[in-house]
């Protein structure tokens, strides 16, 4: 089902949770709503489900307005953050619930339930109660329950937030495969950029109730449109730089910069992995600390006249040769973006 959302606004008391958000979602795609907590992404999802009603704006499903359709009649699957399984019903009864309320006959219901439990890898566990399952299993029951009535749209609110890191990674891959298999249009909310980028076709970045940018993961990573997006989707260095004919100057460092104004003061954003360090005396910076992080190494340095600078390198990278605390280094920026200064004021993550 294709979705169109126009000028959605929602206020809770004095808090503007959703502020003039418009977007479209193509039928059959898997879309992530990514943003920090409290950014309004869950509220958008709840409005799509009919669990909240917007103060203004409209929601369209397949070209039909659904803004005022009751949640009960929207035929949407919703996976809640903490699963919200019916704790007094068995796993099978949970999965079959959506069919039961639609008066599907018991035989079809049992078959469909069994089929879905197989699909989510929980075949044979239908007789258990939710309390007897692990977090990851409950998550999959919640998904099976949402999918059972064959919804036109699947909404997932922080679907992997409550399971531990390892299970989360498995569930992500599994969700992507499941989506490709079932093909239902899906939107999920997350505050985890890895999750958003590794699973979805498109990512919508939400901040302070506003849509900052929407695009494919590659578009957002390579061309963050606002400083907020640039900061949010990567480990970044942000400097106030002086632009001079397309060259940004930060302390002792000079670098050409893509995008943004070409003169005056700007916000210069450099990803930690878009930097190269070379041991060189005098150089422009001093290495402070070298922190191994599993497959990567993070290097903290102080750039002369500009303050701290963080770079990341693969663990065995040749770029790390001679990089140790106290060493003087030359810095090369492989990719940098600039943004007007004002835009940075209120959008720190």
């Amino acid at each position, binding site marked *: 089902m294709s979705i169109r959302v126009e000028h959605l606004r929602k206020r809770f008391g004095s808090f503007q949770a959703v502020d003039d958000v418009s977007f479209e979602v193509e039928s059959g795609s898997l879309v992530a709503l990514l943003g920090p907590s409290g950014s309004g992404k869950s509220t958008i999802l709840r409005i799509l*489900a*009919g*669990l909240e009603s917007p103060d203004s704006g409209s929601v369209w499903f397949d070209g039909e307005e659904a803004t005022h359709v009751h*949640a*009960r*009649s*929207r*035929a*949407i*699957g*919703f996976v*809640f*953050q*903490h699963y*919200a*399984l*019916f*704790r*007094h*019903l068995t796993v099978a009864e949970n999965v079959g*619930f*959506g069919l039961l*309320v*639609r008066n599907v006959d018991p035989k079809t219901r049992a078959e469909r339930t069994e089929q879905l439990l197989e699909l989510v890898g929980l075949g044979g566990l239908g007789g258990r*109660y*939710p*309390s007897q399952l692990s977090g990851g299993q409950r998550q999959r029951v919640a998904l099976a*329950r*949402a999918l059972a*009535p064959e919804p036109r749209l699947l909404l997932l609110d922080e679907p992997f937030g409550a399971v531990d890191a390892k299970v989360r990674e498995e569930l992500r891959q599994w969700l992507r495969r499941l989506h490709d298999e079932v093909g239902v249009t899906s939107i999920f909310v997350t505050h985890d950029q890895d999750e958003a980028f590794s699973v979805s076709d498109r990512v919508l970045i939400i901040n302070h109730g506003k849509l900052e940018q929407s695009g494919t993961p590659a578009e957002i990573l390579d061309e963050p449109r606002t400083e907020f997006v640039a900061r949010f989707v990567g480990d970044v260095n942000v400097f106030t730089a002086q632009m001079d004919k397309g060259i940004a100057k930060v302390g002792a460092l000079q670098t050409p910069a893509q995008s943004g104004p070409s003169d005056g003061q700007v916000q210069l954003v450099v990803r930690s992995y878009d930097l190269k360090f070379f041991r060189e005396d005098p150089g422009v910076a001093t290495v402070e600390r070298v922190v191994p992080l599993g497959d990567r190494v993070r290097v903290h340095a102080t750039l002369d006249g500009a303050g701290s600078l963080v770079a990341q390198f693969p663990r065995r990278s040749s770029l790390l040769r001679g990089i140790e605390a106290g060493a003087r280094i030359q810095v090369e920026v492989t990719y940098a973006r600039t943004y007007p200064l004002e835009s940075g004021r209120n959008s720190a993550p």
Partner: protein
Amino acid sequence: MKPVGFALLPGPGELWVRRGIVSYIGLLVLVPFSVLVFVAFQDGLGAFWERITSDVALSAVGLTLWTGLLVGVLNAFFGTLTAWVLFRYPLPLKPLVSAVVDLPLSIPTLVAGVMLSILYGPASLLGQKFSALGIDIIFAKPGIILALLLVTLPFVVRAVEPVLEEVDPAEEEAAVVLGASPWRAFRTVYFPAIYPAVISGSLRSLGRAMGEFGSIVIVAGNIPQETLTAPVYIFGEIESGHPATAASVGSLLLFIALALHGIARIAEKRVGGRHAQA
């Protein structure tokens, strides 16, 4: 009980505290309890049976039981509904409504009886209106039921309300998104959660109704075989110098109360034990 580490094991002084408390509870509860049962049965089972099966005693116990059961059932329904309304709807003056629900706990029940007899008594306007319709409230069974409903009002409400608060509202939303009607959502999400609390609250009000004296003695009129309840009958037997009869009927009430308590426990376990956590 949780085992306590060595450092927290009681010293000699604390052992004395422990013994003291055990004796205190024993003297306060167990001794009178035993004496009651002893006096009830000291003339043999036959004498006990005779005392509890006299026409007056039988009708008093019967009246107490059926009014108690009726009140228990009515409370199960209205109490649950009250708890739901308090939990669910943003009532104006909610704290006030909530305090009113608790009021019967703090009014001396004698005073509750006085209120009712003033309001519905034969001398009152309302009482005369009802009399004209052929309904006597005070000095009749409706008065007993009204008094019992009044004094037991909080029990189910206070048992159910905290349980409702514990239910994750997302479960109800999940039911609604899946297409459930409000009634279906309630039955699926809330009912299984509150069911044991409804039962235990209802049985508590039945237990309370069986022992209720203060309000009843004023509103019932205490006519033997008509509006004389078991507690008032027991009181009369003590007053007229028949402690053995009082002890016998008292023991009977005690056994019934214990049995109800047992049923409540089982009902709670059967529902609660199956899927306690999650």
